[in-house]
């Protein structure tokens, strides 16, 4: 059974939402944190509700709504989200009040909206959608776990037209804590030179990317989602990738473009550099984290990019690392890892 990406919508630190050109007008940032460019939410959400919604809920609901609009679908067969940190803003708001007000006279709103399933729930509520609804929260494979659930549901013929998204918000507190944990560079960098400044640390990011997956073929579909595999601390990434491609009767020679998760951190990029000089040696290469920053569900941005590369038949200049034969790619492999523990492979094909 073929699984198709019928539509996609992405809110990110780039102008990826509601404008037609595909990564032509790139936004440069200097610092260590990229913030999502927020659309005019009034077009997607009732203004009365916008005021109550946190950043991640607004991003998620708007991206999900636009994704459904693009596919011209009113009611998805399932709603599935992936997020490692969930609703950080509301969690921190409530936690701060618990501490500062010594557990007294707390308003409930932030707590109510702090659960990790809030975005999927709000989408269901907005659509009055009673169908399957799930939220995965497993660190660097939160989005992939959700995507895998969608693929299984389609395979089981339990649902069609599945709305699935990767979401993450960065708030000041989480940025501060993650900076103290050593994730980010110690001095400001331009995101456009991130991958050229090999040093310790990366830049933080955030975003929401949604996809509508279905099994009906149509020339309107963006691409086919051919395969997905997650790996935990793999012994050999090279062998895992070869085996993954082999399970679809492919070799690396069949792949027109590899999108990797380089993030500018020396240790993080080691495995990509190793592969780029070996398994991927004769393959066109692209990167994406200089555009959206590093976050646990950033692979959803990569999937949005891959689907659009295939649909438009173009690889935007700003993402190319090495161009061998990447004009109108038909088969794109996304290889990402999060902090060297969670690795994921996604295979996206032209329809």
């Amino acid at each position, binding site marked *: 059974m073929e699984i198709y990406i019928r539509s996609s919508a992405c809110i990110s630190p780039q102008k990826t939402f509601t404008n037609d050109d595909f990564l032509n007008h790139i936004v440069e940032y200097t610092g260590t944190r990229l913030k999502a460019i927020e659309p005019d939410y009034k077009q997607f959400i009732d203004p009365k509700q916008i005021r109550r919604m946190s950043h991640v809920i607004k991003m998620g609901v708007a991206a999900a709504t636009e994704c459904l609009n693009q596919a011209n679908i009113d009611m998805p067969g399932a709603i599935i989200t992936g997020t490692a940190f969930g609703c950080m803003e509301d969690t921190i708001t409530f936690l701060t009040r618990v*501490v*500062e007000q010594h*557990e007294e006279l707390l308003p409930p709103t932030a707590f109510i909206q702090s*659960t990790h399933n809030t975005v999927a729930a709000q989408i*269901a509520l907005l659509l009055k959608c009673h169908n399957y609804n799930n939220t995965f929260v*497993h*660190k660097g*494979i939160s989005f992939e776990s959700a995507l895998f659930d969608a693929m299984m549901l389609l395979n089981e013929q339990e649902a069609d037209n599945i709305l699935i998204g990767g979401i993450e918000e960065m708030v000041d507190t989480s940025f*501060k804590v993650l900076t103290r944990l050593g994730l980010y560079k110690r001095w400001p960098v331009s995101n456009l030179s991130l991958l050229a400044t090999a040093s310790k640390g990366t830049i933080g990011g955030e975003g929401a990317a949604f996809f509508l997956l279905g099994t009906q073929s149509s020339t309107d579909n963006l691409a086919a989602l051919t395969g997905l595999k997650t790996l*935990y601390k793999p012994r050999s990434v090279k062998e895992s990738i070869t085996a993954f491609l082999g399970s679809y009767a492919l070799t690396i020679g069949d792949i027109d473009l590899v999108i990797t998760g380089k993030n500018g951190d020396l240790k993080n990029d080691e495995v990509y550099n190793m592969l780029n000089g070996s398994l991927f040696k004769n393959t066109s290469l692209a990167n994406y984290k200089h555009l959206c920053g590093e976050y646990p569900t950033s692979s959803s941005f990569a999937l949005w990019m891959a689907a659009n590369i295939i649909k438009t038949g173009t690889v935007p200049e700003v993402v190319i690392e090495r161009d061998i034969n990447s004009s109108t790619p038909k088969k794109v492999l996304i290889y990402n890892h999060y902090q060297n523990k969670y690795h994921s492979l996604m295979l996206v094909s032209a329809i």
Partner: protein
Amino acid sequence: MSSSIYVAGVGVISAIGNNAAENLASLAMEKAGIGDITLLDTIYREKLPVAEVKLSNDELAAITGLPSNISRTTLLSVAATQEALDDAAIPGFGTLRTGFVSGNSVGGMDKSEDFFVDFLADSNKGKLRNVFDHECGSMTEIVADKLGISDFMTTISTACSSSANAIFYAARLIKNDVLDVVIAGGTDALAKFTLNGFNTLMILDKEFCKPFDEHREGLNLGEGAGYVVLVSEKVKNTLSKQPYCTLSGYKNSNDAYHQTASSPEGTGSYLAMKGALQKSGLTPADIDYINLHGTGTPNNDSAECTAIKRVFHPHYPPMSSTKSYTGHTLGACGGIEAVFSVLAIKNKIIYPNLRFETRIEDMPFEPEKNFLTGQEINHVMSNSFGFGGNCTSLIFSAI
């Protein structure tokens, strides 16, 4: 795709016992685990009853072989998963495709709370060790490492239905031939965050909770972990003892009514129960016992009542909320109650709904008041409903 999913092992830790045998004994003796707060540092000590696991972090660390300074949520999870895996005693475990799917609601919040006190005073302060494993996924990862599982792991967080959805997802991983064995369920430790959160919603009973009673006034929070070991038909044939039962039905539906409140018609729970029956090919009259979500809040219980009436009328099976023993363990309750459902089949028993006195007005049924033995129990339904309208029903069936 059509092969059965078998339950080969169970493990549970809750306020009524540190393993399955202890839990069963308390269930039979009608002994609730609810009492004063002794572990959390909160202003609600002696004001709000909770259902604590009766072991300190040091004691849990000693049992599990993990350090005592990690999240209690992780420690509880290791205790229950180790028991489940030992119980299943799967031959050649290391040679099979194994996975771990776990639910929880607030990850390492118990430790993050400590961090946050110092951090709020000075953002360069606070021990990073206490916040490093804040993410829900960290609990699962530490446990999977401890169990030696690396083929597949993930974490689900759909509030109070998290672990029911984990069991659901795990079964499908086997059905789709991705894995042979999956340990699935969930864990949650008491935290100031959740205690205060539920308190702001004014749904905590200041006395022991009275699920499904006309005069119910709210829930008591609890903590614990519960897991089942699910195996494929192929693995089942290699087991040295009979599996407990099958997981024959499951359904996840969304109430799509309100972020925290259930719809008066119980739409989500109705669809979940009906869908699970359909999946298992059973009729309402086939169900021999319902382990209710039954939190004890006026809203949940009335919506669940209405939904049960819509599905089961006029064949009402015995039903009870074991939250009257364990409190509401949030992300763990679907796992703990799955274990209780499995044990009901295995031991031919039905658990009482403690402290039940008055039938809910206009309802043609009421929960079971006595511990029943010698029951012919072929099919048990277990309900878990959560914030965000996430409703899931599971059905376990005798072999």
